[in-house]
């Protein structure tokens, strides 16, 4: 193992070597930081790095392991999206308004990672308050797609996707409100899962849209995703929307065939605007599932065309309420010159928030305001019911729904310019899982002719993450691209 670049290992591979005593967590963590030193200038995945703390944690993990008490993720270096509260590291949420905010407590997911012995190397770049599909809305620099410099990583968990793809961490945590785990995972060629709403605690997750937000893993392969799910899932009394159901061993779901499973192909997800290369990758993925023994069935999700409109009312409405807390009083940026309370609120918020956040607060405030509530927020909430019912009907006919994740591969930074609607529409294939609360996943399946990664999306019924993992595993086994990494020089 002398010459091996440990940073290129998967989570499970590194775990095995640690267990066998072939490597130490200190070696692994040092290798990760040497990789970060080599490529971070190009990729810009991180907002904050904790080199010293990580090495201390790694030493601790090695000590614990020698005592025979290693945790599930003992000594494994991972990145965390800067949306989860960490008491030892600032948590900016990609926003100037939280630039210096060091939370007084750890999020439950952070707590679980720490208990499992993970080494959190840093906090990753994200669109401000998770609002964006490209990571261009990050106040602290825009990460670049490791597969092609100058291209977007996707968003909003773009830093997490980039750091895993570029081997700057073995795995990462993201959050997904309308596709923010699955879309960047697809654009950066890694695995990403948005669990069922309520599967993973949201305690300590900085709130964007509380009825849609969910935390999930972003990993190099499907086995790693299952391992991470084992660690972060479960009921939390501090999150009253988390669901008290037993957590299965997700790694046991990775079996080699799909006999007895029915896979639905929604006609509406293959409409015009879908890039032909993306369609081809997804169609060949469907053939792999057939080859693995699954029955393929065409299904319909008739309200798909309305999900973007529903989402861009409900998410901003919830955001406008959640972001009211940034008032310059208890934490976050305050304009110290303001002489009256109102002036302080307005100046602090107007300086602290970026353009996209302001825009969404305004849409949400408008949609909830007197005279417009029925026409916008209530109407959207009713159509949300119709979207949920589409999925209930679909899952009576199939176990898993297969589709593209995004209509196109990654595009150039700046290319979609100042047209928010065009960007919002690119979220069309991922949004409905959040509206319905179901789990969704992205698994790498191919590449465009330009060499940009293309993922396949899998969606399942509530709490059926195991079916997604099993299906994804079978795609991974057959796609023949596992282990292919970007050349970053």
């Amino acid at each position, binding site marked *: 193992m002398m010459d091996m670049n440990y940073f290129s290992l998967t989570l499970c591979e590194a775990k095995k070597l640690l267990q066998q005593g072939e490597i130490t967590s200190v070696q692994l963590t040092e290798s990760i930081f040497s990789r970060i030193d080599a490529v971070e200038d190009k990729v810009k995945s991180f907002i904050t790095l904790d080199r010293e703390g990580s090495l201390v944690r790694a030493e601790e993990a090695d000590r614990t392991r020698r005592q025979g008490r290693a945790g599930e993720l003992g000594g494994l270096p991972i990145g965390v999206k800067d949306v989860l509260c960490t008491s030892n590291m600032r948590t900016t949420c990609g926003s100037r308004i939280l630039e210096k905010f060091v939370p007084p407590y750890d999020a439950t997911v952070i707590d679980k990672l720490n208990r499992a012995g993970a080494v959190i190397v840093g906090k990753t770049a994200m669109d401000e308050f998770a609002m964006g599909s490209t990571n261009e809305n990050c106040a602290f620099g825009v990460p670049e797609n490791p597969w092609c410099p100058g291209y977007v990583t996707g968003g909003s968990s773009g830093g997490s996707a980039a750091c895993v793809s570029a081997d700057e961490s073995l795995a990462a945590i993201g959050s997904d409100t309308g596709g923010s785990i699955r879309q960047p995972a697809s654009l950066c060629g890694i695995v990403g899962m948005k669990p069922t709403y309520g599967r993973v605690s949201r305690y300590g997750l900085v709130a964007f849209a509380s009825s849609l937000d969910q935390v999930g893993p972003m990993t190099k392969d499907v086995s790693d995703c299952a391992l991470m799910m084992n660690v972060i899932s479960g009921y939390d009394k501090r999150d009253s929307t988390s669901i008290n159901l037993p957590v299965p061993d997700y790694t046991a779901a990775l079996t080699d065939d799909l006999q007895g499973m029915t896979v639905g192909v929604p006609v509406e997800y293959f409409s015009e605007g879908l890039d032909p290369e993306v369609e081809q990758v997804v169609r060949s993925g469907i053939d792999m599932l057939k080859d693995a023994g699954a029955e393929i069935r065409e299904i319909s999700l008739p309200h798909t065309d309305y999900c973007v*409109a529903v989402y861009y009312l409900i998410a901003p409405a919830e955001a406008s309420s959640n972001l009211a807390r940034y008032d310059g009083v208890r934490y976050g940026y305050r304009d110290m010159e303001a002489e009256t309370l109102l002036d302080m609120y307005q100046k602090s918020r107007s300086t602290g928030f970026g353009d996209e956040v302001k825009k969404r607060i305004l849409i949400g405030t408008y949609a909830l305001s007197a005279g417009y509530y029925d026409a916008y927020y209530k109407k959207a909430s009713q159509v949300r019911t119709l979207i949920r019912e589409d999925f209930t009907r679909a899952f009576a006919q199939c176990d898993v729904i297969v589709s593209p994740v995004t209509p196109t591969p990654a595009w150039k930074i700046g290319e979609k310019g100042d047209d928010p609607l065009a960007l919002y529409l690119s979220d069309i294939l991922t949004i409905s899982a959040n509206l319905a609360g179901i789990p969704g996943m992205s698994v790498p399946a191919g590449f465009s002719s330009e060499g940009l990664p293309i993922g396949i999306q899998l969606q399942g019924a509530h709490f059926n993450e195991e079916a997604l993992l099993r299906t994804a595993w079978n795609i991974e086994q057959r796609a023949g691209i596992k282990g292919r990494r970007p050349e970053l020089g």
Partner: protein
Amino acid sequence: MKITKEEVAQVARLARLELRPEEVARITSQLDAILGYVAKLDELDTQGVATTTHSRDIANAFRDDEVSQSLDHDRALTNAPLQKGEYFVVPRIIT
């Protein structure tokens, strides 16, 4: 026009945001496009359809009313831009 500059300025006041005139103009046209797009929901008849505010059917989540450790003053105040003793300090409210 779905929304006017005056309405955007009014909504900004409600949201405690201060917009520069050029921001009002740009945001008005973007909001107008977005509101024009979401109007497609009117194509659907939703008479009698229940609203979904939450994707899972959870009723009130109760817990036992037990005293437990909570954040102490010092820790709660560490991020305050301005503080004094046990208090957050804000500009004078009553004059």
